[in-house]
């Protein structure tokens, strides 16, 4: 339908969404940019004038910056590795015929629906607590000393919690992608003499490549922004301060808004770099 009348109606219908999102994006973003060039301490003197790129250099040269980057990379990388690898295996498994598929699938997906604060606290207390946690009981039953999960193995602990939360997402998407694989393709490969491993490498993995990329990109964007899981478990202690958490602390806890805003701008740039790749893939899909 492309008559004049419908086209002008379409513009009117699109306008509210565009205007709202434009405001949602531009207003806070320009404020963050504004603050990032100021020395601004709301509790200690307020607006102390323009400082140029001072905040940007100070944010990067502060002693917590590189550890935060390191923590972020370790956690994001670890969770991606675990969820994608296990996700592929689990989706292959769930795609096989077995009894009780419906129930098993629900069990696999359930963690995704658990709110971040619940999963953070449940893991922290009921499982990783060195005295009363499930793992501590288990260790003692085998006669070994319980691990101080969240203080001594803090990054590993967070990686486990986040992987548990995101594994369903990866599994579900990869399973959907596998189900769209033409079974004749597998049969053709069998006729051509490909064994199980060959079929996996040459047919299934290439077929999944796009879905895997999407899983990685979307998870990266969400994982870079994780907050609640850290907030309720370690509150940034024991070397679990990610970039997001560092910025949060600068802005709201120590109320150094200028410095925090500069960090925010870095985070926005980082997210945008990943977003560009994601949008390419999604955009390609649009023109199909």
């Amino acid at each position, binding site marked *: *339908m*492309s*008559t*004049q009348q419908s086209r002008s109606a379409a513009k009117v219908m699109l306008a509210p969404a565009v205007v709202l999102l434009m405001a949602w994006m531009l207003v806070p973003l320009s404020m963050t940019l504004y603050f990032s060039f100021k020395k601004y301490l709301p509790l200690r003197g307020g607006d102390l004038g323009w400082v140029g790129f001072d905040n940007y250099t100070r944010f990067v040269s502060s002693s917590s910056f590189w550890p935060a980057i390191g923590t972020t990379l370790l956690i994001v990388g670890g969770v991606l590795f675990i969820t994608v690898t296990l996700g592929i295996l689990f989706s292959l498994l769930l795609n096989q015929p077995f009894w009780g598929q419906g129930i098993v699938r629900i069990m696999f997906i359930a963690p995704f629906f658990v709110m971040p604060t619940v999963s953070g606290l449940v893991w922290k207390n009921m499982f990783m607590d060195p005295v009363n946690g499930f793992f501590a009981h288990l260790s003692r039953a085998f006669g070994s000393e319980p691990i101080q999960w969240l203080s001594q193995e803090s990054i590993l602990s967070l990686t486990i919690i986040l992987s548990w939360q995101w594994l369903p997402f990866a599994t579900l998407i990869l399973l959907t992608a596998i189900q769209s694989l033409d079974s004749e393709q597998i049969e053709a490969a069998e006729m051509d003499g490909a064994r199980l491993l060959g079929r996996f490498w040459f047919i299934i993995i290439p077929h999944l490549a796009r879905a895997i990329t999407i899983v990685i990109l979307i998870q990266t964007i969400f994982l870079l922004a994780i907050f609640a899981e850290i907030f309720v478990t370690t509150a940034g202690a024991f070397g679990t301060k990610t970039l997001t958490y560092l910025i949060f602390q600068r802005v709201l806890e120590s109320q150094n808004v200028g410095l925090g805003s500069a960090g925010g701008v870095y985070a926005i740039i980082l997210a945008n770099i990943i977003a560009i790749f994601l949008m390419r893939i999604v955009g390609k899909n649009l023109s199909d």
Partner: protein
Amino acid sequence: MSHIHLKDVSKKFGDTEVIPPLNLEIKDGEFVVFVGPSGCGKSTLLRLIAGLEDVSSGRILINGEDATEVSPAKRKLAMVFQSYALYPHMTVRKNIAFPLRMAGLSSTEQGKKVEDAAKVLNLSEYLDRKPGQLSGGQRQRVAIGRAIVREPQAFLFDEPLSNLDAALRVGMRVEISELHKRLATTMIYVTHDQIEAMTMADKIVVLQNGRIEQVGTPLDLYRSPLNVFVAGFIGSPKMNIIEGPQASKYKSASIGIRPEHIAISDSTGTWKGTIGVSEQLGSDTFFHVKCEFQDQSITVRAIGGLELAYGQTVFLTPEKEHLHRFDKDGLRIK
């Protein structure tokens, strides 16, 4: 009573002109077929008449009244779509009744008309099913039923048979033709299949690149195609087109001869060639004959059951009175 007149109608999508200005008159009660290869603009032309697309310039008159700015809902035309476009959430009964409901008819009137249409189209048993539960042919009938109940000024068909299998297609072709004879309402039918065009049309409009190449009765087009394109498009198997010295002998840039207008002999004839593939249809035999003056083999239609060996030398003689001559622009030489 409906007479459709297109005056200097053109259509542009952005900067590309898909239909240059054209004129066309469709008389009351006529069965007109738009035919042409895919992308020739035949569907666009139909959609312009339907009002589903705006014309870029020109005017569309329906019964002498300017309908150019009238919305599709108010043109009183009915359309049968290629995908049938049935409403998936409504039963067959509701699908057929939909235009009547839109026209504000009472439900008893709706019910009666739907029952009548269903009887004609053999759909009575299926009235309470949803489109998803019907076969392709049945869906096609529902789409036609939805079109006929409202007694439109004219019917528009957009490649309605292209999703049916071959056997069903022949049957539906006859049914639509019968419908036209019975209702005597103007019908405009779009297809890429020249056999559908030849068998159903009162008048055929051959289109290429948005331009009208020729308008005429099926036999007009068969007997005297105005140019090489129409000559090649109408008729099956295709007319043989021969260029070069063999054409010059007839004082033309190219000559055309239909397979059924060539005599084949093993001793004498105008052109010498060797038998390639032969296709036995039982009623006819088609030979693809290789001649040295042409890369493309020449198709010859012979009586059924005639057997000639692959590679055998034969002689072909075109019937002079059925020879079509074309000039260097591809136009017919009278």
